[in-house]
Each structure stands twice: as structure tokens, then as C-alpha cells.
């Protein structure tokens, strides 16, 4: 009983913004709004919102690795791609009957996790850190992109699934829930929206508990001072690897949801541009908090899409400028800079912290 209470009390804590009844009331209001949203919107817009939501998992994973753990991974898209392609290969070969797409989802995320364990082992147990971690992870995702891009020939297939080189893989079945009286096919529409929304809530709350747990404490300790963390008796490599694998699984989840949403995945989802964008989403909102990461990601994605519609080639330039401005003017993220700006006149002189 006590342990259960302690577990859920970690929904709020020093590592997450937002506490108290007012915050959770706001959370429920936003959630209710999100639940009611499809009632007031057309199918296309809802499907488009699902597209935004699919990226949030990758962003939250990067927040965990980078914002909380202090290690910049530039290659989250590698896990996105591995899981996305895995989902494609599995479902094209074995179909969607008996809820197999859900099994494929789990397997694809586990493949991404396995790859992360392997890569992370060499990174962290080889004591690679700082900018080199970014370089290695970026190289990995670029290598995967190059490799998949040259699989155009008919000899590149796994079972029935052709890899199709640069054109990518398509026509895999969407997520399908076994349902009494006919399977529920989750194609860009309201059902998929609710499933992804539910996943997002579970992941967000789960991560809040994780970062406020003893594990999260050690993770931020490593970010602040790795030597001291080790000299308190923590094997910091295990904690870093743990965060890396969880982040990779979330990127993989994004990959699967994206692939099943669009029934489509290409090598460029692991390319340079794709790899850089999550860093912009996470940095602009405020990487060291889950809530600012989530909100920041959705805002930046919406702005990015609006820009793409009205002037395609400038959208990426604007993203780049946004990242540079954030790094120079608000390195903690715009949410934190904004909060500080608002708080300034109200701050009492006595505390003087910040």
C-alpha cells in the first residue's frame, strides 16, 4: 500500500514541472479537450494530428537521454527507422490477422531496443561522451540511411517484403485491433487518434514517474557531475545505457506508429534532416522537462507544417534559425526563458535563486 502510494506520488517531484491540484486540473482539462477534439473536426485534420502525435514519443525519449541524462544523441532516427522497417517487414510477411500488427509493434520496438543495447554498450562502456556521442550516433543513422537507399534491386527482400531502396517500403497493413464483430482497422482516423493519444498519456505519465524515481535522480546527477555520481557508488554506465535504451524504444514506437499511419517508410526518415529535426523540437521547448518537450514539439511541428505549406523550401531554414536562436538566447529552451521573463517582476529579493 505504502509502496503503491510512493510510486504514484512520483508523478510530481523535483525533476518535473507542474505539481498540485491546479496543474492536474489543467492536465485533465487539456486531456478532455484532446478527447473531444475529433467531434469538432474532420477526418483529415484528425489524421494530421495523429501525425504530430507520432513524433512526440521520439521527442520524449530524446528529452530523457539528452535533457535529463546530459548525453546528446543525434541518431534517434536510427531506432525510428529500424522499428519502422521491422514493422513493415513483419506485417507484409505475416499479415494483420489475429491482431498480429500489435505483436509486430512490440517486436519492432524490441528490435530497436536490442540495437540500442548493442550500440549503447560500446558507447557508454567505451566511455564515449560529449560531442563524440553525437558524432557516433549521427554516423550510425546516416550509415543506415545509405544502406537502405541502395536496396532498390529485386535481390533486396526479406520474405515477401521488398526493401525498395530510396523509394522506400509501402503498403504494409495499418495497426489492427482484434474486436468482437469485426477487427478494428486503425487507419488515419478517429480510432487511431484515440489509441495514440492513450499511448501518449501513458508514456508521459510513466516517464514522469521514472524521472522522479531513484533512477531519475541518478540520471540528473550524471548530467550535473558524472565523477561525483560515480563516487557515490553508482555504475553510471548502466544508468546511461538504461536511459539510452528507453529513449531508443520510444523512437522505435514513433517509427512504428508513423509507418502504420502512412503505410510508408523511406530511408530518408533516417537521413540528416530527419535526424536534426528532433533536436530542434526538444531544444526549442526545453529539453530538461517532459512537459515543455511535449508542448514544444507539438508547437514546433505545427509551425513547421504551416511553413511547409506556404513556402516549402524555407521551412527547414527557419527551423535551423530557430535552433541557433534558441541555443544562443535561451539555451534551456523557450519555455524556461519565457517563464523566467514572466517571473522576474514577482521574484522576491530574498530567495535570489535561479
Amino acid at each position, binding site marked *: 500500500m*505504502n*509502496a503503491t502510494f*510512493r510510486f504514484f506520488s512520483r508523478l510530481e517531484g*523535483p525533476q518535473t514541472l507542474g505539481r498540485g491540484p491546479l496543474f492536474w486540473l489543467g492536465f485533465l482539462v487539456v486531456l478532455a479537450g484532446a478527447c473531444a477534439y475529433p467531434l469538432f473536426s474532420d477526418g483529415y485534420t484528425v489524421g494530421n494530428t495523429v501525425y504530430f502525435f507520432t513524433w512526440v514519443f521520439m521527442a520524449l525519449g530524446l528529452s530523457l537521454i539528452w535533457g535529463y541524462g546530459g548525453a546528446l544523441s543525434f541518431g534517434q532516427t536510427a531506432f525510428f527507422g529500424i522499428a519502422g522497417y521491422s514493422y513493415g517487414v513483419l506485417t507484409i510477411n505475416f499479415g494483420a490477422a489475429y491482431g498480429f500488427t500489435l505483436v509486430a509493434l512490440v517486436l519492432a520496438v524490441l528490435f530497436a531496443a536490442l540495437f540500442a543495447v548493442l550500440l549503447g554498450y560500446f558507447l557508454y562502456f567505451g566511455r564515449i561522451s560529449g560531442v563524440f556521442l553525437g558524432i557516433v550516433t549521427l554516423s550510425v543513422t546516416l550509415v543506415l540511411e545509405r544502406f537502405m537507399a541502395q536496396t532498390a534491386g529485386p535481390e533486396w527482400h526479406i520474405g515477401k517484403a521488398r526493401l525498395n531502396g530510396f523509394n522506400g517500403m509501402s503498403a504494409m497493413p495499418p495497426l489492427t485491433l482484434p474486436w468482437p464483430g469485426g477487427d478494428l482497422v486503425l487507419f488515419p482516423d478517429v480510432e487511431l487518434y484515440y489509441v495514440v493519444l492513450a499511448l501518449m498519456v501513458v508514456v508521459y505519465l510513466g516517464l514522469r514517474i521514472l524521472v522522479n524515481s*531513484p533512477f531519475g*535522480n*541518478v540520471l*540528473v*546527477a550524471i548530467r*550535473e*557531475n558524472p*565523477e*561525483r*555520481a*560515480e*563516487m*557515490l*557508488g*553508482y*555504475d*553510471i554506465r548502466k544508468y546511461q545505457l538504461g536511459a539510452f535504451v528507453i529513449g531508443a524504444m520510444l523512437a522505435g514506437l514513433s517509427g512504428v506508429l508513423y509507418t502504420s499511419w502512412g503505410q510508408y517508410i523511406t530511408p530518408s526518415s533516417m537521413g540528416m534532416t530527419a535526424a536534426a529535426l528532433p533536436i530542434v523540437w526538444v531544444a526549442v521547448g526545453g529539453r530538461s522537462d517532459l512537459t515543455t518537450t511535449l508542448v514544444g514539439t507539438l508547437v514546433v511541428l505545427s509551425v513547421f507544417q504551416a511553413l511547409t505549406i506556404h513556402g516549402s523550401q524555407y521551412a527547414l531554414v527557419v527551423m535551423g534559425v530557430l535552433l541557433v536562436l534558441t541555443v544562443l538566447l535561451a539555451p534551456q529552451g523557450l519555455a524556461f526563458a519565457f517563464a523566467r521573463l514572466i517571473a522576474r517582476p514577482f521574484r522576491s529579493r530574498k*530567495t*535570489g*535563486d535561479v
Partner: protein
Amino acid sequence: MAILETRALNKRFGGLHVTNNVDLALEPGEVHCLIGPNGAGKSTLFRLVLGEHLPSSGQILFDGEDITAFKPFQRIRRGMSVKFQVPGIFKALSVRQNLEIAMQHHYEPAHLVAEIGRLLDFLKLAPDADRLAGNLSHGQKQWLEIGMAVSLKPKLLLLDEPTAGMSPEETHATGEMVQRLNADGMTVLAVEHDMAFVRQVAQKVTVLHLGQVFAQGTVDEIVADERVAAIYLGQVAETAHA
């Protein structure tokens, strides 16, 4: 049996022989100070004991166990703890969180909050518990780190120049705390420049010079040793000359 023992410990950096055949033994419950002029190899020996450097040859035993190849965190788990010269704290976290991170695996979850409160009182940091550790005064940071190191309930506490940058009053207070911890049975190994502190706490002193054990004894024996005075004075003369 000695709690910490080094046997014929050597460390070379390229052609530089920084630790030269050092045999050192700490008896349980003693406060042992490591002194010596600059460049004598104190810090290197300290880092060898901690596992931040691995020795070129020789052995390190802790509580009877050969820990020569152990990683630092494994040595900490065996019962060592360390306070660095530059306060090693988590600056962007609150004082309370700093202590929680140190203590969370050493106390029952149900008692953790109360234990943290007790330590905050002991460190006289209770009014600052929710401030960021990076905003504390220099002396408070030193206290906080000592608190973190002690909260692991170590058998052996390693102190690297614990009084660096402290006022004479703070130095004396730190010395009193070391004596109190020692009275509770903790063994202490301190690298220290401040002879007032060494006189206050040390039961045994080892003088290092050019990487070797130059002299060993009680504080009075070391102070009376003219050869020790000579190596310190020699260095003073060289510095003055330069």
C-alpha cells in the same frame, strides 16, 4: 589487519615515476594525513587508492580484499567514500536533492526523508535545503559534499585537501567534525597542506617526497624531523629563488 594497504605501489606517466614503491598501511580507526611538498605524488597516490588511476605495478588491499583492478564505484560500494578538493556537488539541483541522491540506496525509503532532515540539521544547512547547491557559499558547498560523503556510512573516508579555501574558523570546525566521525569509528585518510589541521586531527602522518614515502610517524615525530623541514624549506628556497 590494516583496513587499507598498498604494497610496492608504482605509477609511471611516461618517463615520470610519480609513485615509487609506496607501502602504506592504515589501521582501522586511525586518522592518517598524507603531506609533502608540491609534486610529491600525494594526489596521484590518492587517485590510485580511489581507482581513478590504475597502478603500473603493485597491489591495493581494502579490508583484506585485493581491489587493485576495481573500478571507483566498486570501491565505494565496498565502503570507501571521498570528498574532493573542488566541491563535487550537483550544482543545478537543490541541497535536499543532493543528499537524496547520495542516500537513496543506503536507507529504507520510509525513513529517507527523516534521515535527510537529520543530516541537514547536522550540516546546518536546513534553512537552505531547497536552494540550488550551486548558490551556496564556498564553505557550505564543502560541508554539503562532506555530508554526502559521510552519508554513505563508509569504513574509510578519503579527504582531498578538505580545508582548501576555508577560513581558520571553518578549518577548525572541519577538524572537529573529522574528530567526531573518527570517534564513531570511521577511518580517515586526508591529503592536507594545512599543518594546523594536521596537528588537530592526525594520529599518524606520512610524508611523501618525489613519489616515495619519506618519513612516517606521529605528528610530533614528523614536526621534530629535521629532514622533513629540510625538504619543505628546500622547496621554499627554490620558490623564493624562482
